[in-house]
């Protein structure tokens, strides 16, 4: 297990290096720079700025310097927001995205699994159809439409929630619902189909024959096995949801990291682009690792490669 994890950590490091390198050069290759705007700066001022931020130095110096400062977890100053460092931006934006993401994730997982289980237990009955119509809608309606719809119905028509902004708990409900809709529907479908498969297995019949109640069978035998595909999906999902969705953050005016990331690209805010990319990559790579480890815990049949028995 330990060897497996250390090997995985090594490959994470390698992926990270490749991501940094590719982003660094792609970013520089894109036309325009952090100081180009509608009103062109006098050349002297632009030169002065480029010198200050080290943009006039040869690329290999900038590149190696950058690698060194990343290793120290120092992403440098933002080019656009004077007086803020990229570390500031991440430290301020990430908790917001994380909180919203957790809320959405909880909603998506709990309601998704609930719906999926109900649908599977009532296969081909109205509960099944109802849940699946709901799920198809959830998957096919894009999140920005869902967001506007929620704003219109729950905020403007019913006055239950504020339309947008990030102030109190009630401000978080609509964006969390909008963010949760698609993954919830997806989880419901995943749970349903794998539940159906599991329920037709022999060991379920054995459990029934033993005289276990339907509740015991569902919870102890069926759900545990049916959840594997959900866990697989959970890794990338949590990375995506926790780092923030640009669309949702933009529509609801949420000061998260997702909107920061997209804005930094159109601003050509080099240090912010790099910093957030590195931060995201680390999150994504680690969440995939965690999922793989979680596999082994949920299903003892899956042995992590590199374990004792594998050799």
């Amino acid at each position, binding site marked *: 297990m330990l060897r497996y994890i250390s090997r995985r950590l090594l490959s994470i490091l390698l992926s990270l290096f490749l991501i940094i390198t590719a982003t660094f050069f792609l970013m520089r290759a894109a036309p325009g720079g952090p100081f180009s705007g*509608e009103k062109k700066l006098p050349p*002297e*001022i632009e030169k002065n700025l480029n010198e200050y931020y080290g943009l006039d130095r040869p690329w290999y110096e900038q590149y190696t310097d950058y690698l060194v400062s990343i290793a120290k977890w120092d992403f440098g100053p933002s080019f656009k*927001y004077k*007086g803020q460092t990229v570390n500031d931006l991440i430290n301020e934006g990430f908790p917001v995205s994380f909180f919203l993401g957790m809320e959405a994730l909880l909603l998506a997982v709990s309601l998704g699994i609930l719906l999926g289980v109900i649908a599977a237990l009532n296969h081909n009955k109205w509960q099944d159809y109802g849940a699946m119509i709901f799920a198809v809608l959830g998957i096919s309606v894009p999140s920005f439409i869902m967001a506007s719809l929620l704003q219109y119905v729950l905020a403007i028509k019913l*006055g239950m929630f504020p339309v947008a*902004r990030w102030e109190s708990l009630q401000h978080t409900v609509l964006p969390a619902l909008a963010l949760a809709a698609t993954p919830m529907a997806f989880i419901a479908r995943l749970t349903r189909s794998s539940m159906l498969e599991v329920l037709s297995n022999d060991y379920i019949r054995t459990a029934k024959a033993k005289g276990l109640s339907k509740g015991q069978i569902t919870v102890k035998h069926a759900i545990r096995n049916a959840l594997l595909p959900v866990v697989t999906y959970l890794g990338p999902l949590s990375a995506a949801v926790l780092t923030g969705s640009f669309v949702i953050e933009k529509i609801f*005016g949420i000061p998260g990291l997702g909107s920061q990331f997209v804005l930094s690209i159109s601003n050509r805010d080099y240090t912010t682009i790099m910093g957030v990319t590195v931060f995201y990559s680390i999150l994504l790579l680690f969440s995939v690792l965690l999922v793989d480890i979680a596999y082994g815990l949920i299903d003892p049949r899956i042995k992590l490669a590199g374990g004792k028995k594998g050799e």
Partner: protein
Amino acid sequence: MKKRLSLLFSLMLVLSVFLAACGGFNKKESAGEKTGGEKKADVPQELRVNINTEPFSLHPGLANDSTSGTVLRQTFEGLTVIKDGKPKLAAAESYDVSDDLTTYTFKLRDAKWTNGDPVTAQDFEYAWKWALDPKNQSQYAYQLYYIKNGQAFNEGKAKAEDVGVKALDDKTLQVTLENPTPYFLELTAFYTYYPVNSKIAQKNPDWYKNAGPDYTSNGPFKMTTWEHNNKIVLEKNETYWDAKNVKLTKISMSMVNDPNTELSMFNNGELDWAGSPTGTLPTDALPQLKQEGKLHVQPIAGTYWLKFNTEKAPFNNVNIRKALAYAIDRKAIVENVTKGEQVPAMAAVPPTMFPENKEGYFKDNDVEKAKEYLKKGLEELGLKDVKQLPPITYSFNTSEAHAKIAQAIQDMWKKNLGIEVKLENAEWNVYIDKLHSGDYQVGRMGWLGDFNDPINFLELFRDKKGGNNDTNWENPKYKQLLIDSQKEKDPEKRKQMLKDAEAILMDELPVAPIYFYTQTWVQKDNLKGVELSGLGDVQFKWAYFE
């Protein structure tokens, strides 16, 4: 089975009660606000606006975007302020101008910073030199290049002592300019010319990064909260010299960067103002808002135009440029495409600066003349027929609004002149790079004035490599007129020189103007006294709720 179902329903019930409870409080709150608003006696003087994004910097010397300007204009105050379109004395009590119009002596009034320090002439001197100091990386330092040796100091060719701004004593500021600058009192209202509390700034160089005791300002409002990327809260500054005329007690500025959400928030009573100049309204909603009589429209100093790359054939031919410019139906574009009550432009300088430019230098949609010019132009290029003209490429930065205008013009040129047009769009930074490097044929651009003077628009085309010219056009007579106008002391004569220059520009047409910008917004009916300048700036000092 039934048991399980009822369990599910009760779960859902709990959830919905929870959701409803969350929302319920909110409703009560807003209902409370509404009843408060009905009582005429004490209308809460709290304004809620949206400023779209995080300001780049709230240091007057570092700010270089309109969002920062919107905030700074409320918290700081320059020597002058723009009211009713004219500069009025603000932090200055009086001023003298030397006969050659190059030396201004300002007498400051007794005013205080938010921490109680007096506002001194040294604060102005410090702030201007700070912005010009090359080590402070101010992108807007060039706004101060009008001051003697300002540019030289910024480029490292002169010392700070040589810069033409000097505090003669605590209350007297002497400014020496490079050239007579007839619009200098307009400039002193601009944020790069604001003072900075030199005592604080020297002690704490990071004073401007967050709200707090060190963030001192001298304007009608003080910043009490700055949650980055989320909101800014301003409160009335009780130490302000004119505090008795400031009625608003609080301004909340949220940063929601979505026009549809902004309008929804306004409709739901979460904002008192939606749209320009602080935020944006969704274009699609404009016709409906107009029909309901809610839309406010005001012209501003901005021109939307097409730039021709005058070094590329066929745009090196003036008659071809004329044909293209004359064959555009601007009225149709304004009425059917942009729908924001814009004014068709047949001149370069907006009517807010030259009122007679509502008419312009040529007729809108003059297809007959356009055809004549096209014929002449083709002959000069040695082409027999318009079909021999290779298709031209019209570039714009990716945006639905620009795309619609491009399609309309493509259609007009095809129908009126028989010219084939290809459309090409690119992301903003890529586009601006292409334009500045001359890698285009025809491209759209907008230009908004920084201060209220026609030179803002005309000087763009003074030098071929002027940085913002992009058209590669240069005309010696035009250039001379602009240079001479800078030294002319008589405002009437100066205006005539600028008009003559504009006439040359509109005869040679390196740019084809399309329309003059307007700003559109919706606001609470009982909000009065908001001061909007012709440049599209907002000042809330005199605003109040009735």
